[in-house]
């Protein structure tokens, strides 16, 4: 947990330990990244307003190093901040004050996302895009893509229902396990996914937006 407010770091740390997690809490992005390189954590919680390197840059660097799941825990709730943090590579975004139970649910959902997809064992191919759910691999024109777990899970959900429209709410429920969530999560992740699986993300050919309804993966 990267959090510069001492009291929050302490109370949230205690509360998460109560929930059964082992928490390593640091006050700056620099410490957090060093700690992550030394001994990688399963999940990173990061605040956006940090002294020195800010949360956005921290997320970008962590993402460059690997696909560790990242949850932003921030008091900032402007669309601008939410989108910027997600575009930097965060998997989820919760706004302070967040109930410990809610944060714990988010962490569990993120962990479940890491498991292999059970429902679709076979290899799926869409117009040069090859998805191997069991192996957790995605290839575009034969080249392996590096997707985060959330991106991978999102792609698998769309692939399982290829040709059908999935609403943002449905994707939130299935990928993020939200009852009621922020649809910006879906939109930004779709955008990130497009940058990886489309030949030209400005004119998507595979992952299409259906106006007023949601998204679908072209069969």
């Amino acid at each position: 947990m990267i959090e510069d407010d001492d009291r929050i770091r302490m109370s949230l740390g205690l509360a998460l330990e109560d929930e059964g997690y082992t928490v390593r809490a640091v006050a700056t992005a620099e410490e957090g990244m060093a700690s992550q390189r030394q001994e990688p954590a399963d999940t990173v919680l990061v605040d956006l307003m940090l002294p020195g390197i800010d949360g956005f840059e921290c997320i970008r660097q962590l993402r460059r190093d690997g696909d560790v799941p990242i949850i932003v825990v921030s008091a900032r709730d402007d669309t601008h901040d939410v989108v910027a943090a997600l575009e930097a590579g965060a998997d989820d975004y919760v706004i302070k004050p967040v109930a410990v139970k809610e944060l714990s649910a988010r962490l569990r959902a993120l962990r479940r996302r890491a498991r292999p997809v059970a429902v679709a064992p076979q290899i799926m191919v869409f117009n040069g895009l090859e998805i191997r759910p069991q192996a957790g691999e995605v290839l575009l024109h034969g080249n392996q893509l590096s997707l985060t777990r959330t991106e991978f899970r999102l792609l698998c959900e769309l692939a399982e229902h290829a040709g059908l429209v999935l609403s943002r709410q449905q994707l939130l429920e299935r990928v993020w396990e939200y009852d009621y969530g922020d649809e910006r999560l879906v939109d930004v992740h779709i955008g990130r996914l497009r940058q990886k699986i489309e030949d030209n993300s400005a004119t998507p050919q595979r992952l299409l937006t259906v106006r007023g309804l949601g998204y679908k993966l072209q069969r």
Partner: protein
Amino acid sequence: MKRPGLRARVTAGFAIGALVVSAAVALLSYQLTERFLLQERERSAVRATYLEAGIVRAGLSTDHPDIAAVLRALDTGGKRRAVLFRDGRWYGRNADFGTKSTIPLDLQDMVNGGQPGAQRIRIDTGPAIVVGVPLDASTVFYVVDSMQELNRSLQVLAIIITLVAAATTAGGAALGWYAARYVVRPMSYVVSAADNISAGDFTARLDPGTEPDLARLATSFNKMVDQLSARMQRDRRFAADVSHELRSPLQTLSAAASVLLRQKDHMSGRAAAAAVLVSEEAERFQDLVTDLLELSRSDQPAEPEPTDIAELARGVCRTQKISEGIVTVRPGTDVIWMIDRRRFQQILANLIENARHHGGGATAIDIGQRDESWLLDVDDEGPGVSPLDRAIIFDRFVRGRTASARGDNDGAGLGLAIVHQHVTAHAGTVTVTDRPGGGARFRIALPRTSQ
């Protein structure tokens, strides 16, 4: 009594002014004309009489003249009646001998005294003038000249002048009406600007340049709106800042409370009760801050996008753990609405929560359209909302009567204020009425916009 409006008063003022002026001018010109015409008429009557007097004098200069014949020889026409008074006897031309009785006695006295004279009189055919000319010591010649024709001319003149005066009055009234309209027209700019502002558009201003006479009003008006909007912005920013600053301590409080709550089985009864209270209040505090922040963002415009409203409503029902089956779409309704999805989810969630707390739960969400509006009704089967409460129910911190006891955890009374604000951001309206068959119906009406 209600005071008449500015326009009515200006119009009446102009009409009265025009009436007074035109009546005075009419009266004056009538009298001048009348006097001039009468004098002219009198002069010509006198002149004619002198002429005739000369003829009569010549006719009488013979011995034993036939006075009646002399008088008959005069070419006096129908309007003039000549009589002669000679040696105490009256002579006339014919049967109209009665004319002599119309000659005033004082005129007779004067003329008998050797002094010619004229006097206006009234005879049976109307106004006339009688002219008396002494011919010699014992003879006086009178002509009674009827001015009936002149009188008719004056009557026609009077009618014309009256008509002109009336027309002038009407013209004055019309001018007044037009002037009042012209003067009042800039007011309509003020009215429409004020309307816009009361509808929430604080960018509405008056242009002091367009109406120089109203420049001061426009300037003051704009200043007032500037101050008002700056003040509202300050209030909003304050609420946002306060709420924001509360977030970090609240996070600590919430996390610490959850640690306490987890230990409550190992605490004494009193401490456990306190831990539960702290935890519950932290949660309520958190909801309140979230709602306050939502409200303080009201100045941000909605971000509409085409959205399947039925699908969105069903999604909200799922998250609110109520049946999706209550969502119905009236046949022929276009369900793709241009709305801000996030705000609309909040609107529906708040209405459903409101129904849960005060109306026994939402029973129907009905989606339809009428003319240029999209309509969405959320019905419940509660006691309904009294007409008194309808006016204030969308205000902040107003709670339903049933919740006034404050036993339950039903929010701070910001839910419907947020609904109202989000609907307003969509340029729509939200109203509450009685549902046919009992209960309350919250109706959202949005103007239909193209995609």
